């Protein structure tokens, strides 16, 4: 019974995040900025994907460039719009998620609003509820961009709809799982940082400095420490190449997300509200 109440509270907290993003002025501005960026991507990159991918010059150049990066597989996808979408989305959504999920608890903490909530939900429920809310927001946004891409491809050639739909579901799942460790990292940073702006800055420092530290440690030790697996997105090049799919698309990101949420929970439990 208690567990059911926990799920109820987590779901309430997650729903509140959806309202915060989609029904408030500040959330609306963020959505407008996101929509503008994706409109440009759709209009200039994805709408011309079939022309680009089918042109001899592009194929030659792309083979030289993309093959070098191990992405030649993408050129053979039946829906070229989805190929371009995939390349754009796999990197842009994680970066966007860092910004979108930067304020999971810090504004509420500094304002004191979290104290009202903490009398009605455990800190673990607050952490997971907010994480789930952000994941749902990202899921909605990923779905919208995928639907737009699919509609563009279908408008060009209606026979691509079903094959594109099946591929879209696969891509949706992969991108959503790929962004989870980024949201969880921000949940962790929010457990002790009191400003969203500072959380973004710390996350950028994290991605800039931690790889250098790991490289230095491994250089000194002389062997692979596997510490790079602590960095969200470390597997993204494998994800984009669709290599080691089970490990890169599921195990690593989900393990990272769980890890950051667990550490965030420990820190949050000990932190003052």
């Amino acid at each position: 019974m208690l567990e059911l109440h926990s799920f109820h509270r987590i779901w309430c907290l997650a729903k509140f995040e959806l309202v915060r993003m989609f029904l408030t002025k500040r959330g609306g501005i963020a959505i407008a900025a996101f929509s503008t960026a994706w409109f440009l991507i759709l209009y200039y990159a994805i709408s011309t994907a079939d022309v680009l991918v089918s042109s001899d010059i592009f194929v030659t150049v792309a083979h030289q460039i993309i093959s070098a990066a191990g992405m030649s597989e993408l050129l053979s996808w039946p829906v070229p719009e989805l190929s371009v979408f995939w390349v754009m989305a796999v990197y842009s959504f994680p970066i966007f998620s860092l910004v979108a999920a930067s304020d999971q608890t810090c504004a509420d903490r500094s304002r004191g609003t979290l104290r009202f909530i903490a009398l009605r939900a455990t800190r673990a429920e607050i952490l997971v509820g907010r994480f789930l809310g952000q994941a749902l927001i990202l899921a909605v946004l990923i779905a919208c961009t995928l639907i737009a891409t699919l509609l563009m491809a279908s408008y060009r050639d209606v026979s691509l709809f079903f094959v594109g739909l099946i591929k879209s579901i696969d891509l949706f799942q992969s991108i959503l799982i790929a962004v989870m460790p980024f949201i969880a990292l921000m949940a962790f940073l929010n457990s002790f940082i009191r400003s969203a702006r500072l959380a973004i800055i710390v996350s950028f420092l994290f991605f800039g400095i931690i790889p250098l530290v790991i490289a230095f440690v491994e250089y000194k030790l002389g062997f692979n420490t596997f510490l790079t697996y602590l960095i969200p997105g470390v597997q993204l090049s494998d994800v984009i190449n669709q290599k080691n799919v089970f490990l890169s698309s599921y195990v690593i990101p989900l393990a990272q997300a769980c890890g950051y949420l667990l550490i965030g929970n420990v820190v949050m439990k000990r932190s003052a509200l």
Partner: protein
Amino acid sequence: MSTLIEVSGLNKFFGDKQALNNVDFEIEKGAPVALVGPNGAGKTTLFSVLCGYIQPSAGQVKIFNANPGSKATFGRLAALPQDAQLDPRFSIAHQLSFYGQLQGFDKKKSKSEVERTLDLVGLSDTLNEKPDALSHGMRKRVTIAQALMGTPDIVMLDEATAGLDPLHAREIRQLVASLSSDITFILSSHDLNELERLCQQVLYLDKGVLQRHKTLANDIDHSYLTLRMEKQEEGLIEGLKSIEQVIDVVNSQDREYLISVQQNIDNMPLDIQILQMCHQRQWSYRQLINGKTLENQLF
């Protein structure tokens, strides 16, 4: 009587500074409890520990026999934390309804609870306002409303009437008094008159140490009377001292006199004698109180 809160050996350090020092007390279900002390005495720290906002450095705190901040306290312990504010982006109704849903109410019940509690604090017409559209005092009353949602057993109000105009402060006091048969209130305030009127138990903290934990009800010290005058009267102290039962008179503060009384003297009751003297000399008095005021007891 059931014990609601048990605190033993509670210590809280912030770095080198000790905010709470070996605090022990129990609070049972019943009349409101006052938490008193000077600035920096540790009142808000104690509130925060009881609400589960901060962890104690040492000692044990049990609320309903569970740890503060645990699921067992949800819906049963409510609080108005000092300086906590609502989210400015959402309407009052939306936020309070969200809190109601977290407490386990469905949407309909949450809505009715929001309406009921806002009505209690006299703000039923602010349902759809955002917090920034309200004055400081109104925002405070809204946060008091959130503490009254559902059927809490304990409501902790930290400086509930600070910043409220006298009329609304009085309404909040009346509200506390009217609900105190069902809810055990714990009130922190610097207004000792307010606490004296509302509370029957006092926790007095100073420098993190619980100096006194006393019950005011049925605990009037008959060896004292407190006389408050309209204005300073010449010859008042001498006049009072001339009465046989009076041992000593101290001008405890401006126009207030603490009278030490010798009991068991078979004479006209002292309060009657004092009133007669005031009447004869045409001195206007404001109040004559049996015992010491809370302020005089504590300081």
